[in-house]
């Protein structure tokens, strides 16, 4: 027998030094508890970034949809910025509504 063989067999006995199955079931539960506790400690912006990252990963392989959505969002933001930045645009719109109201009242009176 190889000179080291007996020592190796003794060392291999250490493979039995593991806890039972119940420990490993509890281990998964403990893992969840620790994950939750860690999440509570994280700042809000970090949580938001994590969620955003997960959401974006969900779009992996559907880049064209993600691209279209991103384009649409950018267009909406641009429109909101342009109209929001010009007070005249908003008042003109309200003016049109007022004219319509006026017309309908006068029509009722005539009736």
């Amino acid at each position, binding site marked *: 027998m190889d000179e080291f063989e007996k020592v190796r067999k003794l060392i291999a006995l*250490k*493979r039995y030094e593991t806890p039972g199955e119940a420990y490993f079931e509890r281990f*998964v539960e*403990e893992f969840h508890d620790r994950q939750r506790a860690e999440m509570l400690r994280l700042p809000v912006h970090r949580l938001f970034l994590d969620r955003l990252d997960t959401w974006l990963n969900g779009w992996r392989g559907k880049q064209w949809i993600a691209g279209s959505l991103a384009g649409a969002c950018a267009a909406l933001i641009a429109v909101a910025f342009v109209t929001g930045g010009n007070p005249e645009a908003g008042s003109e719109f309200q003016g049109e509504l007022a004219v319509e109201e006026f017309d309908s009242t006068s029509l009722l009176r005539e009736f």
Partner: protein
Amino acid sequence: MAGPRKPDEDKPLVERAQNGDTEAFDELIRKHSSKLYGLVYNMTSNHEDTNDLLQDIFAKAYRSLKRFQGKSTFYTWIYSISVNMTLNFLKKRNRQRKVSLDDVDLNIQNDSDFIESTSKSDPVKEVNILELQQRLNGAMQALSEDHRAVVTMFDVMGMPHNEIAKILNVSPGTVRSRLFYAHRQLQNYLEEFRQ
């Protein structure tokens, strides 16, 4: 020469976990935790440290999973994380804790090698299980962290040289030379059980 790479049997679970399926990650934990426990425990010789380290290892794997591209198998990847984190832990603390022997699995008594080693009629050699465990743990703790890692993976976990080399990111030759040196040290330490 390296043969064709084996397909990663964990791939479906890994992909599900990467897409946010937490149950798939739980499955990966259940599948690998027992062996990883053995790996970490035999490097630290302390159950409490092993539990904490194993939790940290899976937490790190969970956080890094999206960056795992499948260049190695999940098994090799998580073993690398485990070995590196355990080596860092041991180097940082650089301590020799008292070995915990409270919960040794008594299945060891049914092992044919154990029976052979302990039941040879010479009463002087009839060591009890705790003494033997203590001696083995002492021998392992006497090794350097790097040598203990290779002995744990090769002799305790039964992993091949190539796999150990990948996990440690060294050549198979380095693994063999570390094993040779570690075996010589262990042999001296366990001399009385060898006869």
